[in-house]
């Protein structure tokens, strides 16, 4: 009933999940997370839920990962390590406000 294909996909799913959590580099782990989402959407195809497969492919693998990428860009960790002083100056408004806290 459950064929080898499903086994492989589920195995991949667990490997992806674990390596997403343990990977040191954010960019790599976002990309692994993307593949996790795509495998998930294939699994939903296997489970006869095409609605979910489309939505997960568009939302999970598409938009969520894009948001992760743009966040990484904003926090300057796309190319970390070698540019320590590439960080944004402290937000001015914050400084004013935190002064009277």
């Amino acid at each position, binding site marked *: 009933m459950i064929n080898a294909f499903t086994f492989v996909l589920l195995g991949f799913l667990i490997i992806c999940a674990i390596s997403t959590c343990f990977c040191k580099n954010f960019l790599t782990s976002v990309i692994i997370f993307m593949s996790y989402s795509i495998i998930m959407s294939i699994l939903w195809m296997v489970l006869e839920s095409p609605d979910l497969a489309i939505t997960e492919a568009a939302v999970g693998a598409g938009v969520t990962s894009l948001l992760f990428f743009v966040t990484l860009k904003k926090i300057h960790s796309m190319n970390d390590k070698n540019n320590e002083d590439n960080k944004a100056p402290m937000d001015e*408004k*914050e400084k004013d*406000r*935190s002064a*009277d*806290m």
Partner: protein
Amino acid sequence: MDLCTNFPMFSIILCLMCGVVCSVLKKNMARYVTYGLLTVLVVLSAAVLGYTVSIDGSFIYQMGHFGAPFGNELRAGVLEGVFTVFFSVIMYLSVIAGEKHIYEDVEESKINLYYTLICLMMSSLLALTYTNDVFTAYVFVEINTITAAGLVAVMGNGRAYFSSAKYMIMSLLGSGLLLIGITLLYDVTGHLLLSNIKYAVVTSTIKEYAEPFTIIIALITIGLSIKSALFPFHSWLPDAHTASTISSSAILSSLVLKAYIVLLIKIYYRAIGWETVLETGVNDIVFVFGIMAMIFGSVFAIAQKDVKRMTAYSSVAQIGYIFMGIGIGNAAGVVAAVFHIFAHGATKSMIFTSLGGIKEVSRHSTKLDAIKGAGYRNKVASVAFAVGAFSMVGIPFFPGFVSKINFADAAIDAGGPKMIVILVALAVSTVLNCIYFFRALICLYTPVSDPGGRLTEEVDNTKPTAKYIGAMAFFIVANLFLGTFSDMIIKLITRGLSMFS
């Protein structure tokens, strides 16, 4: 079918629509829309309460063209009526009392968004109270979580962002457990409506899944108690309540935490069945953690130097009271817990808003040594704080006293070792409450010399507005009302709880 039965649906959808509209209005317009909405909500909820009292029963409102097991449903009874009236009144008063602070603390262009969040928060509170469907409850729990995080973060400083993130993380852990609990519940019963789940539980369907069922109850309980900051999971609460603006603190502590407890009681009574819960023994675990929260919350509160933070820790202790009441395991305990939801909600929101007034005249600080003598500088706020302190400590004629009496009654009903534990815990907790609230109160009324005249100048600059005074007066009246006419409210609660099952 009476027109009144449509009011629950109208009030929820009106909240959603007003919230959406507020996001495009100017700040003052958004404020008027919010006040109008809250007025309408008070009226509608009161109408629902009056209707349910007059027919002496509850009604089910079918959302759409399809009946019982197929579509969504709302359900309103006496208890729901009381809850929604209470929620809308407290929300109204908190927003009005904190209006000045909202305009000061929130960035100019984002004030209308703050009111948007208030409207949507109100919709989730109403929906959590009225809903008769576990998955709808999950969706609105998420709405509640996101809006609450927004209300904390709106302050716009680092501490607020940090507290908001911490709140989100803990809360999402709770949502995850709640979601998997709901999933398992759907799996073993095949229904999502509370009444149908109960039917499946009562009939034989559930018998072969008795073991998973205990786990389901435990998961839902843990999930919701993380979200309402029961003792070991309380770490987010003091941060979130201290960092936000006054209205947000009041709303968070008196409404948001309570909505989850209302949902939990609803699920216990209407979906799982109170007897089943007692059989599994989940209530004993809740009881133990409730007692621990009562003691440890107060101990932590004593250690605080900041009155606002102290009040936040006092919330941890009071949440402990409520869970302890649920955990006692008899009907009287739950009645006392529900009454304490009202008592604590009314009192804690008053204390937080009064702290807003005290803060203005104490060099923008709520540290214990800063608020010395504030009782003479801002009289209204200090009187309100004193009333709140009396209520939390348990002086007669204030709501806190009534709920303590009720808890003791319920304990004596229960008997056995639980009775002794509860009575000892109540006594210890009362003493601890006395220590920290009276210390704050004494500080408040200690006369101080004012060498540079700076404090007087501050007082002159910050005359409390008429709205603030009105709101505080209304708060005090509401508290005294809850304290003196408690019999009537307890009768309503008992009536409402008996309609649940």
